[in-house]
Each structure stands twice: as structure tokens, then as C-alpha cells.
């Protein structure tokens, strides 16, 4: 059984706070981990480096991935997770401010399971993340650990 429902990969602390608040509004019991850059995200997923104690631990049920990240960017994180047989099944929802065609295209080609544009309005963010939690964690069956 997964110990983490959502791995949120977000470098902007304000955005991270809004997303965490919005997720909590959708479901208070949600277990969320935060990675602040691409390296932390990969170490968390693969159980290496700072997250070596997670080696062999179950994967989060879904990853919310920002694209613009320091060190290793979101597209590269996506590519590494989707090209490793151990993590390929992990659902990845891209959550970004970019509405650019080329970003959307690149994410789907890289194996993203969903692509969501961060709304400017906080109320809209709450609504979107509520839908997201309902779909990916309640309606949808996530891959068995």
C-alpha cells in the first residue's frame, strides 16, 4: 500500500502552498509529499540520494509535475520516470502555467497521463484540483504498487 497519495513537484513556494491548500480542501486526509526541484523528485521516486530510505518503498499514487523546475526540468523528470520499467506505470499529471502547444505536445509525447493548466484564480484552482483528486484518486484505479 502506498504511503503517499500525491507527490507534488513544485519549486515555487507560493504555488506549492496554494496547491497544498487546494488539495487539502478537496480531501483533508490526503497524504502529500513535496519535491522542490527535479532532482528531489527523481530521488523520491527512485529511492536514491536524500530519499535513499525510500528504496523499495511503494510509489506515490499520482505525481503532480510542474514543468519549469531548477536543476532537472519537468520534461526530463517525465522522460526518466517513463523510460524506467519500474516507474513507467506511475500516473503523471503535468500541472503548469504554460498553455503552449509545444509544451502540451512534448508532455504527451513524453508519456504524460494528463496535462492541466494552472488557473490564475485561486477559486478556480480549488475547483480544478478537487476534480483532479476525485478523478485520479477516487474514480480512477491507480496501478497496483
Amino acid at each position, binding site marked *: 500500500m502506498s504511503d503517499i497519495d500525491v507527490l507534488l513537484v513544485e519549486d515555487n513556494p*507560493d504555488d506549492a502552498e496554494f496547491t497544498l491548500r487546494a488539495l487539502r480542501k478537496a480531501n483533508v486526509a490526503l497524504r502529500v509529499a513535496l519535491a522542490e526541484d527535479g532532482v528531489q523528485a527523481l530521488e523520491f521516486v527512485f529511492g536514491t540520494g536524500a530519499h535513499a530510505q525510500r528504496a523499495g518503498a511503494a510509489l506515490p499514487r499520482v505525481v503532480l509535475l510542474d514543468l519549469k523546475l531548477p536543476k532537472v526540468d519537468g520534461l526530463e523528470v517525465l522522460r526518466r520516470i517513463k523510460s524506467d520499467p519500474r516507474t513507467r506505470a506511475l500516473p503523471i499529471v503535468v500541472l503548469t*502555467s504554460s498553455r503552449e502547444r509545444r509544451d502540451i505536445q512534448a508532455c504527451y509525447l513524453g508519456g504524460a497521463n494528463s496535462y492541466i493548466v494552472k488557473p*490564475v484564480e485561486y477559486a478556480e484552482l480549488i475547483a480544478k484540483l478537487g476534480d483532479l483528486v476525485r478523478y485520479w484518486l477516487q474514480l480512477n484505479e491507480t496501478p497496483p504498487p
Partner: protein
Amino acid sequence: MATAAEPETLAAVSPAALALCSRRSRARHAMDLLFRLLARLSPRVAKLIEHDTALAAELEERRNAEAALRAAYGELETRVAERTREVTQANEQLQQEIQDRRRTEQSLRYSETLLRRLHEDLEDHIAERTSELTRTIAELEAFSYSISHDLRAPLRAINGFAAILREEHADRLDADGDALLMKIETNAAKMAQLIDGLLDFSRLARAESVSAEVDMAALARGVALELAGDERSRTVELTIGELPRVVGDEPMLRQVWANLISNALKFSAPRATPCVAITGEARDGEVVFHVRDNGVGFDMTYAEKLFGVFNRLHRADEFPGVGVGLALTRRIVLRHGGRIWAESNEEGTVFHFALPAAPARRAA
């Protein structure tokens, strides 16, 4: 021979003659002798004379021939001299001509070299400017893209924290605090609109366009119908005439109609009976469209500023909008190889835009 015979004969006769004959007979004899001598000599003399005459005649003839020859020679020499003079003259002329031609060729070659160098310089210059311009455009696009995206993050933060404040701490806000929070939210919303406009603008610059025949009447009607759903336009009298078809990018042209019609609706809204009329016709290799309203109009002094990004001719609180629509509209029209202009007075405003009747290729 004659001289050899004569002394012999004379010697034989002379002693007897002197002795026997009288002086008369001697004289006669002498005469006779003389005659005979003469008779014997005369043929020779005649022959000699004849010969001499012939010689003289021949000499005369020769002299004549010589004179004729000399005359002919003289004439020939004159002619030759004349011809030589002519040829020399012609030659000189030719030399002059050759020299002239050589000089012309030289100056032509020089001009050619100069021209080639100028041409090369110009091409270098153009290539340089083009790459400079391409770089600048790319930088500008990257800049506006980055601005649009990077500006969104703090805006999201402002909006988000204001919303949390309103939602979770409303009970601790008094009327003044609430009004201030409202101002923060209004400005954040305005900023969001500006950024959206900027994004639209930079997205259009990078968008590829597709050319196809477009039914402008249907397009304008569709857009007008959508906009008529707005409460502002509920009472508007909107007419759309026969419109010529064009070749262009339909989504972009839809945006042109949307911007012009919504502007017309927006600015005619304060009138008791707002009127918007859309007409169009083909003329002089162009198709021209007109969107006429009876709205408040604008000051023609600032007509040029109409189409600039973020330029507005009215106060923000008079009419909504951020000043991107017309800039976008003009950019689309220009991309189609057309032009756009506006006229206004206190009775209303007309926006005209002209597109090429059948654009073979559009400048991207």
C-alpha cells in the same frame, strides 16, 4: 662596197676622158657619172631616209607613249596619294575610334566592378540586417513569452493570497480592509487581462497560418451571433450586408471580426439605439470591409495610436478592455497582405480593412 668600185672606174675612164672629150662632154660625162652615182646611191639614201622617217615616227610614237605613260603615271601617283591620304585618314579615325572604344570599355569595366562591389556590399548589408532582425524578433518573442509566463506566477500568488484572506479571515476585515482587498483583486484581474493579451499577441507572431477560401459573410454572422449573447448588445440593431469571399486563415479572420464587432458593440452601447452595420465590396484588386457603429467615436488626432499594443483612447473605467484587440487585428490583417484604418466623428466610427482579392502568397 660602192666606194671600193668607184675609184677603179674613175681611174679607168679619167685619162681617156681628159684627153679625148671636150669640156662639154667631160661635163656631161661627169654629170652622167654623177647621175649614175646618184642613181646607185639614191635607193640607199631613200632607204636611209625611209629608215630615218620610220625611226623618227617610232621615236615620236615612243615619245608619245612615254608622255602618255608619264601622264598616266602622274595620274596614278595623284590617285595613290589621294587614296593614301584617304586611307590614312580612315586609319586615324579608326585608331581614334578604337581608342574611344577602349576607353569606354575601360570605364564600363570599372563601372561594372564598382557596381558589383556595391551589389556585394548591399547584399552583405541586407544579410547582416536580416539576421540582426531575425535575432531581434526571436529575442522579442522569447521576451514576451517569458514575460507572459513569468508574470503569471506572482499574479497567481497575489490572487491566491487575497482569496485566502477573504475566505479564511473575512471576519477580521472591516469595511476599509475589505475595500482595499477589493482593489488588490481588481488590479490583479486587470493584470491578468494584460498578460493574456500579451500572450495572445506573441502567440500570433509564432503561429503558422493556413490559407483557404473563407466565406466572410458566414464568419461575420457567426461571430456577431456569439457576441449578441452579451447583455451589452441585446438591443443593438445589427445588419450584415453581402460580403465578398477572401482567401486567408479562417481562425485569424474570425478574430478580426470578433475584435471589430465587439469594439463596435462596446462603443455604441451608450447610445439609445446602438447600430452596427457591416458591409463589404470588391474594388481595384482588393476586397474592402467596413464595420460602422454610431458609438461615441474617438479623436482622429490619435487615430494612429489606435492600433498600438496596450494603447487606449478612452479611460479604463469608461470602457472595458486592455488595448490589445486592435493591435492583434492589425497584425492579422498585415499578415494577410492587407491594411486597416479607421475614421471617426461624433456620429460614430467606421473601421475599414482591405485584403488582397486573391493573395497568391502571404508574407508570413
